C-alpha cells in the first residue's frame, strides 16, 4: 500500500479545507461518512472527534479511504477545486483511521446484546457494514462467509498493493470488537435462508456479491491461458501465486477491460514480472471507468492502455495463446457505454503478441443464488430485486444489499446498503 500521510501532512491538508457551509463533499458521500465534519474536526485539532465521526458513520472508513474513487464522489464536489485543487479527502480519512489504530483510540464500544439474532450471508462491505450497525443497536449479528477469510471483494478482489490484507484485517477487528461474529468456511447451501429462519434467526441479510465472472465469447476464449480477472486476482491474493506467476512472468499480457479491476490486474501482472501489459477497452481515455489513482499507478507501471478498441480473436499456436486480433472502435450513439453500441473503425485492425489474456469485464451473480433463497424476487440477470428502499425484499424478514442487488458498484455504496438494511432490520424487529 502507499504510505499513509503523517500527522503533519494530514493537518496541513486539513488546513486547506474551506470548511464549507452545508459541505458539498458530505452530500456526495454515498455512505454519508460526512467528510465536511471530520475534516473540520481535524482542522481544529480535534483528532479524536474526527475519528469518532468517521467510525460512527462508516464502519469501513479506513477501507473506503483507500479504495474509494474519490474524484468521482466526495472530492468531485470539493469547493477548493475552484481556487486550487480538491482536498485529498480519501487520504485524510485513511490517515485518521490508521492514526486511531496507532494511538490506540477506538471510539466504538461493544454494545451488542441479545435483542435478536440476525444472519448475514457474505462478509463483503455490505455484510460487514450491516453487521456492525446491528451490533451497535444491541442485536446479535452473525456473518456467514463461504471463503477462508472475511472481506469478500475487499479480500479477494483487490490486490495487496492497493489494500493490504493486514489493513483490512485490522478494520475487521474493529467490527468484531463490536460483538459481530464472523463464521468463515461457511457455505450456505440450497434453502439456506429458510433454514436460518427455522434455526431462530429473526432476519437474514443477503450480501453475497457477484462472483460469477463474465467472459466474452470469441474464437480462442476457451484456451488455457485465458482467465478472468476474478480468478487471476484471487490467485494472486490467495495461495496460487506460484502458478499464476508462471503464467504471467516475462510474458506479454492482454487485459480486456478498462475499469479499476482491469487496472488492478494490469498492475498485478507488472508486479509479478510481466513484460508488456496491454489494457484494451471500449471506452476512450476520457471515458475510462477506472479511477484516476488506478490509472496513474498503471501509467507508472508502464501499462499500455489501448482505448476504444475491441478484441476479435485470441490467436492460438500449438494450443497456447500466441496473440490477439482486434480493431479500433467508435460509439454509435454518444454516452452509451455498452458493447452493442460500438462499431468497428475500418482499416484499424491490429495484432498483439501476447501469451495470456485476462478478461476484466465484470461479473454477475452466481445462478445458485435463487436456490439459496427461493422465496424472493429476482431480475432477469439473477440480481435480487429489492423494493424502492434498495434493501427490502418480498419477504419482510429477508433483506439484501450490495452488488447482489445493485450489480457492479462501489464499495462505499455497499457500505451504505449495509447501513440502510440494518436500519430496516431494526425497524422490522421492533
Amino acid at each position, binding site marked *: 500500500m502507499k504510505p499513509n500521510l503523517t500527522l*503533519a501532512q494530514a*493537518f*496541513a491538508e486539513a*488546513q486547506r479545507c*474551506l*470548511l*464549507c*457551509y*452545508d459541505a*458539498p463533499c458530505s452530500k456526495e458521500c454515498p455512505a454519508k461518512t460526512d467528510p465536511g465534519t471530520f475534516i473540520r474536526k481535524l482542522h481544529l485539532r480535534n483528532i479524536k472527534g474526527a475519528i469518532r465521526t468517521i467510525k460512527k458513520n462508516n464502519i469501513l472508513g479506513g477501507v473506503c479511504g483507500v479504495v474509494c474513487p474519490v474524484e468521482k464522489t466526495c472530492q468531485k464536489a470539493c*469547493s*477548493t477545486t*475552484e*481556487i486550487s485543487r480538491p482536498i485529498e479527502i480519501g487520504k485524510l480519512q485513511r490517515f485518521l483511521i490508521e492514526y486511531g489504530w496507532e494511538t490506540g483510540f477506538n471510539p466504538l464500544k461493544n454494545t451488542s446484546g441479545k435483542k435478536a439474532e440476525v444472519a448475514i450471508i457474505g462478509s463483503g462491505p455490505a455484510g460487514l457494514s450491516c453487521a456492525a450497525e446491528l451490533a451497535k443497536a444491541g442485536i446479535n449479528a452473525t456473518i456467514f462467509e463461504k471463503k477462508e477469510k472475511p472481506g469478500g471483494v475487499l479480500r479477494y478482489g483487490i490486490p495487496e498493493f492497493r489494500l493490504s490484507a493486514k489493513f483490512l484485517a485490522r478494520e475487521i477487528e474493529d467490527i468484531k470488537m463490536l460483538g459481530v461474529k464472523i463464521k468463515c468456511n461457511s457455505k450456505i447451501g440450497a434453502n439456506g435462508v429458510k433454514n436460518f429462519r427455522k434455526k431462530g434467526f429473526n432476519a437474514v441479510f443477503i450480501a453475497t456479491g457477484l462472483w460469477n465472472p463474465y467472459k466474452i465469447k470469441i474464437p480462442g476464449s476457451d484456451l488455457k491461458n485465458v482467465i478472468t480477472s476474478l480468478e487471476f486476482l484471487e490467485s494472486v491474493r490467495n495461495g496460487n501465486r506460484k502458478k499464476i506467476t508462471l503464467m504471467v512472468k516475462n510474458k506479454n499480457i492482454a487485459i480486456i477491460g478498462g475499469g479499476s479491476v482491469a487496472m488492478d490486474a494490469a498492475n498485478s501482472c507488472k508486479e509479478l514480472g510481466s513484460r508488456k501489459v496491454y489494457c484494451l477497452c471500449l471506452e476512450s481515455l476520457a471515458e475510462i471507468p477506472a479511477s484516476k489513482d488506478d490509472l496513474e499507478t498503471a501509467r507508472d507501471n508502464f501499462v499500455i492502455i489501448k482505448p476504444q478498441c475491441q478484441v476479435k480473436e485470441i490467436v492460438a499456436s500449438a494450443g497456447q495463446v500466441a496473440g490477439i486480433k482486434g480493431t479500433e472502435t467508435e460509439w454509435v450513439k454518444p454516452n452509451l457505454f455498452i458493447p452493442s453500441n460500438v462499431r468497428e473503425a475500418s482499416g484499424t485492425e491490429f495484432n498483439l503478441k501476447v501469451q495470456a489474456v485476462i478478461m476484466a469485464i465484470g461479473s454477475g451473480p452466481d445462478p445458485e443464488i435463487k436456490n439459496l433463497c427461493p422465496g424472493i424476487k429476482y431480475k432477469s440477470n439473477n440480481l435480487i430485486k429489492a423494493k424502492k428502499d434498495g434493501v427490502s425484499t418480498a419477504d419482510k424478514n429477508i433483506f439484501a444489499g450490495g452488488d447482489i442487488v445493485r450489480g457492479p458498484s462501489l464499495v462505499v455504496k455497499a457500505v451504505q446498503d449495509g447501513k440502510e438494511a440494518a436500519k430496516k432490520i431494526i425497524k422490522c424487529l421492533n
Partner: protein
Amino acid sequence: MCGVKFPTPFLLSSSPVSNTAEMVARAFEHGFGGVAYKTLVIDKTKIIHPSPRMAKYNYGSKKLVGLQNVEQTTDRPLKDNLLDIKYLKKRWPKHPVITSIMGFSENEWIELAKMSEDAGSDMLELNFSCPHMTVEGSGMKVGQTFDLVEKFTAAVRKVVKIPILAKMTPNITDITEPALFAKKGGADGITAINTVRGLTEIGLDDYVPKPNVFGKGAISGFSGPAVKPIGLRFIAEMAQCKELNLPLAGCGGIESWIDAVEYLLCGASILQMTTGVIHYGHRIVEDMCEGLSDFMTEKGYENVKDIVGKALPNLHPTEAFDLKRQGIAEYNLDRCIGCGQCYIVCRDAGGQCLEWDGEKRRPVQDKEKCVSCMICSFICPVCDPPMITYKEVKNKKPVIPSVSK
C-alpha cells in the same frame, strides 16, 4: 540616524543573532546594514542560560508566528566581545555597530559604556527592557522605573561622545513616559520594542509552560510576527509625541519588506530584527532590500528617510472618525465558489445580513442589514482581487439591531 549612516536600514537586533562577530559578519555579507550587538554585562555578573531557552509558537501549519525565549544577556567574557566589536569595525568600517549594554549599578553602566566606545562602537543601546533577567535589579525593571532610566542614561551620557539609544519595554501602558525620561537623561534615540511578556504553550501532559526548564516554566519574552501590531503601535505613539521628537529604531515581528515599510511609515528610521533571522536566516534581508527599493522606485522616493512617518498624519484617535459615512460589504458573486463561510460568520458573528441559497450555493445579501464589519471578506477564500470589498453607500444610516422577537 543620530548622524550615523547605515548602508541599509536593516539591522540585527541585540539578541542571540548578534552574539559573535562571526555571525554578524555573515549577516553583513547578506545585506544587513548594521548590528545592535548582543547586550554586554560586567564579567562579575555570571550569566548561565537556562536549558532549553526557547519555545515555538505555531499557528495551524504556519511555523513560528511567535517565539518565546528566556535568553539572557551575553554569556561570553567581556574581553572577547570587545575584541569581536573591534574586529567588526576593522573588517566592516561602514557598518555601524550599536553596542547594547546593561549595568547593575551606575558604575557598571559607565564602565561598559566607556569600554564599548573605546572598542569602536558607533552607538550605544541601553538595555532597559529585558523581560526575564535571572539576575535581580536589571532589565525591564529599570525600564519600568522611570527615574532609573533617566539616571542611568545621564550617567552614560556624561562619559561617552557617541549617540545613545534607549531600548524600551512594551510591558507598560504608555511608552512615551519612560522615553521622555531617557531623553531627559540625554538619549539621542529610542529603540522599541523589546519582547512582550507572554506565555505561548503549556504542556498538556505535565502542565509546564514552555520552554520547559526541567519542570519549570516562566512568563518571559515573546516575539515574532504575532507582536508586530504591538511594535507598530509603540513606534507610532512615540513618533507622534511632539515632546519626544527623537529618531526611532523599530523592531518587533519584521520579516518581509512590507513589515519594514510599515515600521518606516509609522516613524522608525532604522529597523532591527531577530525572530525573522531565527526563522529564515540572514537571507531574508536580501528580499527586504529588494522589496523596499522596488517600493521606493514605484512610489518615487530617493531616500529611505523620505518615507519615515508618512502614515502618521493619518493616525487619529478613534473619536476623530466621521461616523456619518457608512458602507457595506459588496459581493462580486460571479467569482463565488460557494463555500458558504461568509454565511456562517455573518450569521454567527456579524450583522446577520446574509441568507443562504442552498440550491445555487450562494449567499444572498440584505444590504440594509450589513453592518460593514467586513469579517466575511477576511475569511473569503477568493482573493486577487478579493471577491468581497468595502463600498461606501451614500446616505446609509448606521445599522442598529432591533429587539429579538
